[in-house]
């Protein structure tokens, strides 16, 4: 399997504070990597650097061997906050990137329709974001990112603002899409259940200044069903990661948290 993304010696300082220590990470084709860590550990910073929304103070990020120096349509992103454009309907939100690419209108609509169906929002094409629940807004955001046909999908705690039940449904939905589309995904979360359930690889980051502490393959079979969350293999991995993350949360609690 080919390498999609290479993170090499990436470090980020905010003024005097070191937020992210020199970090290396290789992402292979079809990887679903979840990045776990205590809050303020720099996991979102790392993701934003990959997205090109933030710049490393040292090191570099390569996508298919090309250095990243800004945001682009080849890395679709789903944010924790609801970032649908409120003046556009669901359909026009999904078409947003396709318009940028200058696709013919008929083709835009065809693609948008397919992805709206994939996230289960058929019938809501003409709704405005404010008329949708949080879960539906995030589903639209996923469709919007996927419709662009990105090389990678970057997700920054996309289900963090959702209630527990909705969150579990969203996990299954996203996993189903990943199993079907075989996208390469980098997914930041602080929810250990979510990290294990979704991932082909879990990466645990240390407390600030962040660095990768553990990189663990998840061998659970696909397709995964929510019932897998109670299986012994899942539980074992979850308790291992819980220990690992807990140590970091404790470490983060002792050192007074600096401004993000």
């Amino acid at each position, binding site marked *: 399997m080919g390498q999609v993304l290479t993170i090499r010696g990436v470090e980020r300082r905010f003024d005097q504070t070191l937020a992210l220590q020199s970090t290396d990470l290789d992402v292979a084709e079809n990887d679903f990597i979840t990045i776990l860590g205590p809050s303020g550990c720099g996991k979102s910073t790392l993701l934003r650097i990959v997205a090109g929304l933030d710049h490393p103070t040292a090191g570099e990020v390569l996508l298919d061997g090309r250095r990243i120096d800004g945001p682009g349509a080849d890395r679709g992103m789903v944010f924790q*906050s609801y*970032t649908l454009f409120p003046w556009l309907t669901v359909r026009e939100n999904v078409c947003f990137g396709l318009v940028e*690419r200058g696709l013919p209108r008929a083709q835009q609509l065809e693609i948008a329709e397919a992805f709206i169906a994939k996230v289960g929002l058929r019938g809501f094409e003409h709704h405005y974001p404010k008329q949708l629940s949080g879960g539906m807004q995030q589903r639209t955001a996923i469709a919007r990112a996927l419709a662009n046909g990105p090389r990678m999908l970057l997700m920054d705690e996309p289900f963090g603002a959702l209630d527990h039940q909705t969150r579990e449904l969203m996990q299954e939905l996203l996993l189903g899409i990943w199993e079907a589309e075989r996208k390469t995904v980098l997914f930041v979360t602080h929810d250990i259940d979510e990290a294990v359930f979704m991932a082909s690889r879990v990466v645990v980051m240390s407390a600030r200044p962040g660095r990768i502490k553990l990189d663990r393959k998840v061998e659970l079979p696909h397709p995964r069903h929510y019932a897998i969350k109670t299986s012994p293999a899942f539980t074992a991995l979850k308790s291992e990661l819980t220990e690992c993350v807990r140590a970091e949360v404790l470490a983060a609690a002792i050192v007074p948290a600096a401004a993000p």
Partner: protein
Amino acid sequence: MKPLTPVTPGAKVVLGVAFFVVFFAVWSIATFGGFVQKTFLADPLAMLRSGWVLLAEMGFAKDVGMTVFRVVGGFVIAAVIALPLGVAMGAYKPIEAFFEPFVSFARYLPASAFIPLLILWAGIGEAQKLAVIFIGSFFSLVLMISVSVGNTRRDLVEAAYTLGSSDASLVRRVLVPGAAPEIAEILRTVLGWAWTYVIVAELIGASSGIGHMITDSQALLATDQIIFGIIVIGLIGLVSDFAFKWGNRQLFPWAQIGR
């Protein structure tokens, strides 16, 4: 009464109308009851009668038309220039840094104080009237539009970039449409201010307009006509405000959801 509890639509209308009833009642008692001299304050009936005379015999409709033309004309000129400049300032910080200090300063220059200068420069014709409205509304428009564009949610900007937007299309497809409802509200507010400037402009060196009629009436101590003129201004303001609100609702249905 409980704080922040809404009233029913019916009660809202009744209460709104009730104010005017009370207002006219107090006015009638004060004037018909002889508590106030006619020289200082005309009674409501005299006001309506002289309003009718103004409209039917003295060509007041033409004055109203002239005033509306001046307000709308000066305001449209100001808006047409203020829109692109405000958007450019909101979007591009160097442009903002260049213009903002001057515009902030110019905003506090009272438009009415320019009238003598403008008469010197532009005479007492329409250009001078339009210029007063322009000065009165342009700088505020620029500043408010630029703030509104500059307040665009940063996460929406980032989302657009990750979807492949260029800088130019970010302005066109995110900054402008996102700020549009607020800009429309700004236009509505500033149009209201333009109305106060036009009357001042017409008080000095005008041969037509509502303000001119008011100055003429002052010479004749015709308080009934003055009050009628003031009420006409209020009514036109109210109508244009409602029209603007209605237009904004039609143009930006998404901004109404969840209000």
